[in-house]
C-alpha cells in the first residue's frame, strides 16, 4: 500500500518542481521586460537618471534574461540546483534594484518570497524570508549612503542615522513585508496539504482499481471453462461484463443422475456488490441442484438459503434447465428471467412459460418445473437481457426481432460461431455506444444419441446396464450365440478393469461410453473412459495363468480379452482412453 502512495507523492512533487521552475523563470523574463520598457520610457522623458544606475539596471536585465535563457535551454527542468539559481537571481536583482536604483521598491523583497512559495518547501520560504528581511535593511543603508533620505545632521553618528532609517523606513516596510510573508507561508502550507490529499485519493483509487481487476479475474475463473463432455450435446457460452466485475452468470454442470444442468442468470445491479451476490447465488444453485432429484425442490431450498442475510434485497433472475442427453427431455424452471429461444428445424421460437417470481428475494417461494422434448438437431439459445436491451445510437434497443433474425441466419453454424455472429450483429447495431449491461449468452446443440451407444457410470450398476445393452444389441444384430457369449466375457473384463482402475484417484466415479458397431463380417465394440491414462496392452504378462494361480496376479482378464477378440487397439485421445475390440463373425 505504501509504495503506491509514496510513488504518487514523489511524482506529484517532481511535477510541481518543474512547474515552479517554469513560473520562476517566466517571472524573471517578465521582470526583465518591465525593466526594458521602463528604460525606453525613461529615455523619452525628461526625468534624469544617473548613468551608473542605468548601467546597473541594464546589467540586471541581462542577468535575468541570461538565467532564464539557460533554464529554457536545458532538458532536465526538474534538476535540484535550478531552484537555487532562479531564486538567487531573483534575490540578487531585487537587491540591486533597492540598493542602487530606487529604495521605494523596498517592499519588492516580497517578490523572492513569493517565488520561493512555488516550491512547496517550508524551509525554503523561511530561509528566503529571513535572508530578504536582512537584505532589506542592508539595501536601505547602502542606498542611503548615496542618496541620503536621512542625512547626517550636526551631532548625529552613523549609528543614529541607521536607527532613524530603521524607524522611519524599515519598520513600516517590514510590517507590510512580514504580513506578506505570513500570507505566503499560510498559502504554502495549504497547498502542501492539498497535494497530500490528492495523493491519498489517487493512491486509494489505484488500489481500488487493482482490487477490482483481481476480483474480475476471480469471477472469470468461477465461470465454467469447459463443458461436460457429451458426444450428443455441444455447448458454448460467453459473458461480457459492463463494468470490470459483472452481475450476470451462467453455469453448466452434471447432476448426479447424469442430466446436464444449464443456468442463465442476471443479478439486479452491476459492479462489485452485484458480483458478490452473484457468487453466492451461483454457489447455492450448484450445491442444491447437483445432488437433488427434483429441480423445483432444489431451487426452493436454494432460494431460501439465498434469502437469508440478504439485507440489501438483491435478487437474481434465473432460467435453469436439466437436460437428459439420452432422451432429449428438458425440465426447466423460470424465475423471472427472459425466456430462451429454441431453434428447431429452421424455426426460431421463444420457450415461453408463466414465470415464477425472481430468485432470492422472498422466502418460501414455489418454483414450477415445466418440460419440453428436444428433437435431433435442436438448438437452445439462452441469454440475459443485456443482449436484447443493448442501446444503439438513436436510443432504440437491439430487441428480440433482431436477435431472432441473427439466430435464424446462423442456424447452420457451430455454437461458438453463433456467439460470435450474434456479438457481431450487436456490435454493428450499437456502434460506439457504451455497454450499459452485462451481455451473457449460452448455446446448446442437441443431437439424438446413437442407439447403439450408451453411457453409464463406471460402477456395478453401469456394468449391468452395459451387459443388458450388449446382449440386446447383439441379438438384434443376430449374432451367433458363441460369439455373443465370448464378447460378453470380454466386455465384462474390460468394464471391470475400468471400474477398478480408471477413476481410482478421483472423488467421484466417471463414466464409460460403450458403442457397438457391426459390419458385414465383424463387430467392433468401443469403450471410452475419462480416467487416468491406462494402456491395457502395455504390460504383457508372460504367463498370466501361472501368475494367477501362484500369485493371484491380474493380467488374466486382459489375456482372455486378447484371446477372444481378433483385434484389440488402445488409443489415448486428449482426456479419453479409447479401447476397441473387433471380432469376426
Amino acid at each position, binding site marked *: 500500500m505504501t509504495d503506491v502512495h509514496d510513488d504518487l507523492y514523489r511524482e506529484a512533487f517532481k511535477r510541481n518542481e518543474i512547474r515552479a521552475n517554469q513560473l520562476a523563470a517566466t517571472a524573471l523574463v517578465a521582470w526583465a521586460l518591465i525593466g526594458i520598457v521602463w528604460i525606453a520610457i525613461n529615455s523619452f522623458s525628461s526625468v534624469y537618471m544617473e548613468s551608473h544606475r542605468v548601467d546597473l539596471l541594464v546589467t540586471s536585465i541581462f542577468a535575468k534574461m541570461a538565467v532564464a535563457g539557460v533554464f529554457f535551454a536545458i532538458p532536465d527542468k526538474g534538476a535540484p540546483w535550478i531552484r537555487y539559481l532562479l531564486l538567487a537571481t531573483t534575490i540578487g536583482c531585487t537587491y540591486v534594484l533597492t540598493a542602487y536604483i530606487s529604495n521605494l521598491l523596498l517592499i519588492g523583497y516580497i517578490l523572492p518570497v513569493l517565488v520561493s512559495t512555488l516550491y512547496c518547501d517550508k524551509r525554503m520560504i523561511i530561509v528566503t524570508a529571513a535572508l530578504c528581511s536582512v537584505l532589506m535593511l542592508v539595501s536601505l543603508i547602502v542606498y542611503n549612503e548615496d542618496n541620503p533620505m536621512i542625512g547626517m545632521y550636526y551631532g548625529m553618528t552613523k549609528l543614529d542615522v541607521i536607527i532613524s532609517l530603521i524607524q522611519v523606513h524599515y519598520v513600516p516596510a517590514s510590517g507590510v513585508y512580514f504580513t506578506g510573508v505570513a500570507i505566503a507561508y499560510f498559502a504554502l502550507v495549504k497547498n502542501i496539504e492539498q497535494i497530500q490529499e490528492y495523493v491519498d485519493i489517487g493512491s486509494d483509487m489505484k488500489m481500488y482499481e487493482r482490487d477490482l481487476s483481481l476480483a474480475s479475474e476471480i469471477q472469470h475463473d468461477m465461470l465454467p471453462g469447459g463443458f461436460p463432455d457429451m458426444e450428443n450435446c455441444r455447448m458454448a457460452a460467453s459473458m461480457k461484463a459492463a463494468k470490470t466485475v459483472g452481475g450476470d452468470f451462467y453455469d453448466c454442470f452434471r447432476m448426479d443422475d447424469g442430466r446436464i444442468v444449464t443456468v442463465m442468470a442476471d443479478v439486479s445491479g452491476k459492479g462489485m456488490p452485484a458480483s458478490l451476490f452473484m457468487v453466492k447465488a451461483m454457489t447455492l444453485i450448484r450445491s442444491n441442484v447437483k445432488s437433488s432429484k427434483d429441480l423445483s425442490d432444489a431451487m426452493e431450498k436454494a432460494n431460501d438459503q439465498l434469502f437469508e442475510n440478504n439485507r440489501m434485497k438483491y435478487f437474481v433472475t434465473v432460467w435453469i434447465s436439466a437436460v437428459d442427453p439420452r432422451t432429449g427431455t428438458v425440465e426447466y424452471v423460470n424465475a423471472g428471467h427472459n425466456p430462451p429461444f429454441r431453434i428447431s428445424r429452421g424455426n426460431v421460437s421463444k420457450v415461453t412459460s408463466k414465470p415464477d417470481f425472481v430468485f432470492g428475494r422472498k422466502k418460501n417461494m414455489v418454483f414450477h418445473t415445466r418440460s419440453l422434448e428436444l428433437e435431433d438437431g435442436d438448438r437452445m439459445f439462452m441469454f440475459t437481457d443485456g443482449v436484447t436491451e443493448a442501446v444503439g445510437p438513436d436510443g432504440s434497443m437491439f430487441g428480440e426481432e433482431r436477435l431472432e433474425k441473427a439466430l435464424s441466419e446462423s442456424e447452420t453454424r457451430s455454437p461458438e460461431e453463433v456467439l460470435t455472429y450474434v456479438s457481431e450483429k450487436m456490435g454493428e447495431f450499437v456502434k460506439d455506444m457504451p455497454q450499459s449491461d452485462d451481455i451473457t449468452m449460452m448455446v446448446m446443440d442437441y443431437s439424438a444419441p446413437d442407439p447403439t451407444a450408451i453411457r453409464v457410470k463406471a460402477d*456395478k450398476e453401469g456394468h449391468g446396464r452395459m451387459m443388458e445393452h450388449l446382449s440386446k444389441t447383439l441379438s438384434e444384430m443376430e449374432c451367433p450365440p*458363441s460369439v455373443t457369449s465370448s464378447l*460378453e466375457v470380454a466386455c*465384462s473384463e474390460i468394464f471391470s478393469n475400468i471400474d477398478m482402475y480408471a477413476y481410482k484417484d478421483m472423488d467421484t466415479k466417471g463414466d464409460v461410453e460403450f458403442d457397438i458397431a457391426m459390419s458385414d463380417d465383424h463387430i467392433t465394440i468401443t469403450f471410452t473412459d475419462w480416467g487416468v491414462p491406462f494402456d491395457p496392452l502395455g504390460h504383457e504378462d508372460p504367463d498370466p495363468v501361472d501368475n*494367477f494361480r501362484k500369485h493371484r496376479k491380474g493380467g488374466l*482378464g486382459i489375456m*482372455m480379452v486378447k484371446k477372444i477378440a481378433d483385434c484389440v487397439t488402445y488409443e489415448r485421445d486428449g482426456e479419453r482412453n479409447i479401447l476397441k475390440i473387433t471380432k469376426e463373425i
Partner: protein
Amino acid sequence: MQIDIKKEDRTVTIKPLGNIDYVTAPALDETIEKEAPMAESMVLDMSEVKYISSAGLRSVLNADELMEGKGGLRLVNVNNEVRSIFDMTNFTEMLNIE
C-alpha cells in the same frame, strides 16, 4: 445373485443362478468360504452359468484350493462357452470338469 446350496452326506453342491463376473463373484466367494470347511467334497453346478470372467475364475480356483487334500472340487454341467473359457486359460487341466 442367487445361489442354490444343497448338502448331501458330506458333499455340498453349489449352484450359482447366473453369470460369474466381478459383480457377482464376491457373493459366490462368500458362499464357498462358508461351506468349504464343513464339506468333504464340493460340486459346482454350472448349469445356469452362461459365461464366466476372470473374477469367476478366481472364485473357482479359490474353491479348488480350499478343497485340496480333501475330496476336491468337481464342476458339472459346464456349457460350451464356459468350457472354452477354461480351455483358453488352461484351467481345464487343473480342474476336475465333467
